[in-house]
């Protein structure tokens, strides 16, 4: 066992322990064990940071002599470390949250924690795999884990329908990865990412196949439709799926392609990928605006946010990659937090329907604060990591002269802010809905608050001091992809190599103003939260009324009516129906001709074989 393989082996050891100790551990005990294992794996991943900062790629065999001459081995470079730290760090926080969230689950907790551990181990293997075959194995292991976890409540139709969609869409598209690597191996005789022989074999067609696979995993339009259906899973699963382990697999694959031939694929596929990313930003957020289910709303925002990340990677510059990878980490933090808040709300109220929520800030003040930080982050409010991520992304796009990308990103940010304003107001402020009357709503447990609070805290920390993440994690990742990038960044993510000292000062003023505002608010002895109407942005609404989720959703549906026709699901359904019709017709014919009259096909085959051998 080496320090390189330790993070993965710890997780697999935890998996075995879960199975062995299942009979003796309580659900809480299983959760604590899983959290401890993932946290240990996180610490082990952190030990890999110094080597990656020094530009060293650590190599180690994981499954030597696996399949003939092929082995599964690790080659952990800067990009690997980024995903390993993200997967284990976010995973540990989510599992800490799970301890209390899952404690009342009557059955299946061993299955839940065991698969969660394999899920995270799969991401680590994907990130560290030295070659494409190992990466593909990890890719599908992640897929299977996700399928099992989304269908955790396998006796509920909604849960199994979601799982089915996850498997079908991502696996069918995932064949692109398999076919692509097969073509590379057939031409190059090797699958090692960094082998120079791979570059000539890694054609634009192969890159396109890899991108299709990545699009499905990373919910790019039009392969994104599985993700809202995957929401009928336990919230920790949704959180892990959306933040760190699943949708980021596609991001990883796109980034990893840059090590092949110096990113030669980008010349032909960069622009199409950029276009896909931009469309995804807008489609995701517009669909999110029409949702009234909190988790579905967050799911569509995942689509939109992944669009930003892919745009960053598709820019093909050092700053673009840094922006994309920083965005990837930031998204993991704020989206994981948001999902855990949604889970805490559902846990406390029994619903996640925004129409049935309201006024929760008074009953769940801790959750409300955490939610607001994460919501501010996803909307790109200064002082959060979401702001830094967008700032870097827009800077990278402007460097390339792609004003349209900035425009799309800006519109997407505005709509994101609108959508989260709706969600925040509907869930936490205003008058509680009648559906909540008589319910005893409780704050999230301390461990749940610790899980989501720690991540929200990091959203603020990396918003104020992004260089803490940039220097040890993001910059080595960018350099490992063949870009010679030196971090020139100050507080708040201001790029100091672009003569923006004045903007830095401006950022400081913003920070000071915010602090001053808070001080004034406190000194003015602000009234305690109560059942008050919310400022609606116009004429006062009748007492007790407020702009609700339905109003907002209807407004969005009216305003963006043509966009909603871009739902690809009806198209997929038509393909399926056509296929079953063809199959039915084939069966009718074959049944009558081939099955009921055996001598006929035998005669036909005999004639065809005899004719064939003389013709060949």
């Amino acid at each position, binding site marked *: 066992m080496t320090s390189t393989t330790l993070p993965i082996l710890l997780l697999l050891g935890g998996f075995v322990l879960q199975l062995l100790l299942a009979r003796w551990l309580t659900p809480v005990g299983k959760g604590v064990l899983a959290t401890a294992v993932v946290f240990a794996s996180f610490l082990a991943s952190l030990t890999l940071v110094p080597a990656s900062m020094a530009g060293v790629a650590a190599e180690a*065999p994981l499954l030597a002599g696996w399949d003939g001459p092929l082995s599964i081995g690790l080659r952990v470079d800067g990009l690997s470390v980024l995903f390993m730290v993200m997967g284990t760090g976010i995973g540990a926080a989510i599992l800490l949250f799970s301890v209390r969230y899952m404690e009342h689950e009557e059955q299946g907790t061993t299955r839940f924690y065991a698969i969660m551990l394999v899920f995270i181990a799969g991401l680590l293997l994907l990130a560290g795999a030295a070659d494409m075959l190992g990466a593909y194995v990890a890719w599908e292991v992640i897929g299977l884990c996700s399928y099992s976890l989304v269908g955790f409540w396998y006796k509920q139709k909604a849960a199994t329908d979601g799982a089915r969609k996850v498997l079908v869409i991502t696996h069918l598209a995932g064949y692109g990865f398999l076919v692509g690597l097969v073509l590379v191996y057939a031409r190059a005789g090797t699958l090692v990412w960094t082998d120079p022989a791979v570059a000539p074999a890694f054609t634009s067609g192969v890159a396109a196949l890899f991108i299709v696979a990545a699009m499905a995993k990373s919910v790019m339009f039009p392969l994104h439709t599985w993700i809202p259906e995957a929401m009928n899973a336990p919230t920790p699963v949704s959180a892990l799926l959306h933040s760190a382990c699943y949708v980021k697999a596609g991001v990883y694959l796109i980034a990893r392609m840059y090590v092949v031939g110096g990113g030669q694929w980008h010349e032909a596929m960069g622009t199409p990928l950029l276009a896909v990313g931009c469309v995804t930003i807008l489609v995701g957020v517009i669909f999110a605006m029409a949702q009234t289910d909190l988790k579905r709303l967050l799911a569509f925002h995942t689509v939109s946010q992944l669009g930003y990340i892919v745009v960053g990677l598709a820019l093909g510059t050092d700053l673009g990659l840094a922006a994309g990878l920083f965005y990837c980490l930031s998204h993991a933090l704020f989206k994981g937090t948001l999902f855990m808040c949604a889970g805490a709300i559902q846990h406390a109220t029994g619903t996640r329907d925004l129409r049935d929520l309201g006024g929760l800030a008074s009953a769940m003040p801790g959750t409300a604060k955490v939610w607001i930080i994460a919501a501010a982050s996803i909307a790109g409010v200064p002082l959060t990591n979401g702001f830094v991520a967008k700032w870097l992304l827009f800077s990278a796009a402007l460097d390339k002269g792609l004003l349209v990308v900035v425009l799309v990103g800006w519109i997407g940010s505005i709509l994101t802010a609108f959508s989260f304003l709706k969600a925040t107001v509907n869930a936490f402020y205003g008058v509680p809905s009648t559906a909540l009357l008589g319910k005893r709503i409780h704050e999230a447990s301390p461990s749940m608050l610790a899980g989501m609070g720690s991540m929200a805290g990091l959203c603020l920390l990396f918003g104020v001091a992004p260089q803490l993440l940039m220097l040890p994690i993001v910059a080595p990742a960018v350099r490992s992809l063949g870009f010679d990038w030196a971090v020139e960044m100050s507080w708040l993510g201001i790029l100091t190599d672009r003569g923006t000292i004045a903007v830095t000062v401006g950022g400081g003023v913003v920070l000071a103003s915010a602090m001053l505002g808070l001080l004034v608010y406190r000194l003015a002895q602000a009234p305690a939260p109560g059942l008050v109407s919310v400022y609606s942005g116009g004429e006062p609404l009748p007492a007790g009324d407020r702009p609700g989720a339905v109003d907002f959703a209807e407004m969005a549906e009216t305003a963006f009516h043509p966009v909603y026709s871009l739902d690809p699901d009806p198209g997929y359904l038509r393909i399926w129906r056509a296929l079953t019709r063809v199959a039915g017709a084939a069966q009718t014919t074959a049944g009558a001709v081939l099955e009921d009259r055996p001598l006929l096909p035998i005669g036909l085959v005999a004639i065809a*074989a005899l004719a064939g*051998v003389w013709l060949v």
Partner: protein
Amino acid sequence: MDTVLIPLFLGIALGVGLYARAIPQGDRSWWRFAATTVALAVAARLAGHSWTATLLASAAELVAVGMVWSGGTDAARAAARKYLTAVVLATLCTWAALALTGLGTLRPGAPWDKLAVALLLIGVALKLGLVPVYFWLPAVARASSAMTTALIVAVVDVGAFCELLTLRDTAPWIFTGFAPLWIGLAVLSLLGAALLALAQRALKPMLAFSSIDDMGYLLLGLVIGGADGMAGAWFGILGHALGKIVLFGAVGAAEWHLGRAVTLDDRGLSTPLPVASAAFMLGALGFIGIPPTLGFIGHWRLYLAGAELGGPLLLIVLYASSAMALLCYVRVIHRVWLGPAAAGPAVGTGGQPLPRAAAAVLLVFAIAPVLFGLVPNRLRPTLDPHPHVAELTGPLVANPLGGVK
């Protein structure tokens, strides 16, 4: 001695025996026929590549017909007649072809070489139930107990296919010289059977068509040959054998529970039969070729062999077949096994829980492909390897990071 197939067949015999004691598959005559079928198949493997082996394998096929006939119903007898027709014709064609080629040791002059290939093609198609002469396999699946079909597919057919693998080594000209015909047969089977599997409502015939589809895959690997094609076919056939025992076994357990045939109209069987449900899911995923199962070890090499021979066009065909197989199995998993259970009591004599022995057999056969998928090298024969196996057992770790061909 064949150190992989013989233990595999004996393991299958033990598993099917335990399963059949817990969930009856037939009367005493069924037991006799089943035991004799496996014994003859094992003896054929012990005899190596010889006329004795050919005779023993053919005898195993004929005895397997008796297994179907022992079902006793009109449908069983009709299916047995169809199977017998296929077996007799296939045996005659194959024997004639082998006689013409001296068991594959010589190439006769024209036109006898062409005749031999044509006869072998017909014989193989009939034996393995390939499209368009698949008529006997769905009929057998519909009319027989689950493990009857499983034994035929996992022992008799696998034995026949492995005999073909040997012939691929001893007489490669049969395949390379007439590759378009073999590839045509393989493509027709993997596309046609995948499409027909989608049209089935009853699970056992669906599994039968899925077997035919998989045989098309494996035949393609065999015809393409080379280290990748042969290794793909070898690992694929092993995954096929293990997978079919699990899939038919799980469906048999559901039939036992319901007291009737299982169709796509059944719902939520995972609630009363969680072990059978999990086994079916694992078996299906392995059969589709999802890593880290043994099915993947075979399938990715078959894709590779397809790419080397037919380029993107053949890859598209393989993709189409894989996609249809996935849709087919996922539909079954989500309609029949997962989700809420159907309202109301089970019909017939149903409602019976899965016996422990049957559950244990299903679990062992479901987990085995996953474990072997992690250590596929263990499945390589250690004695008297055929040339294709020798190619596989070359220097194992050319590069500790993998990826070197």
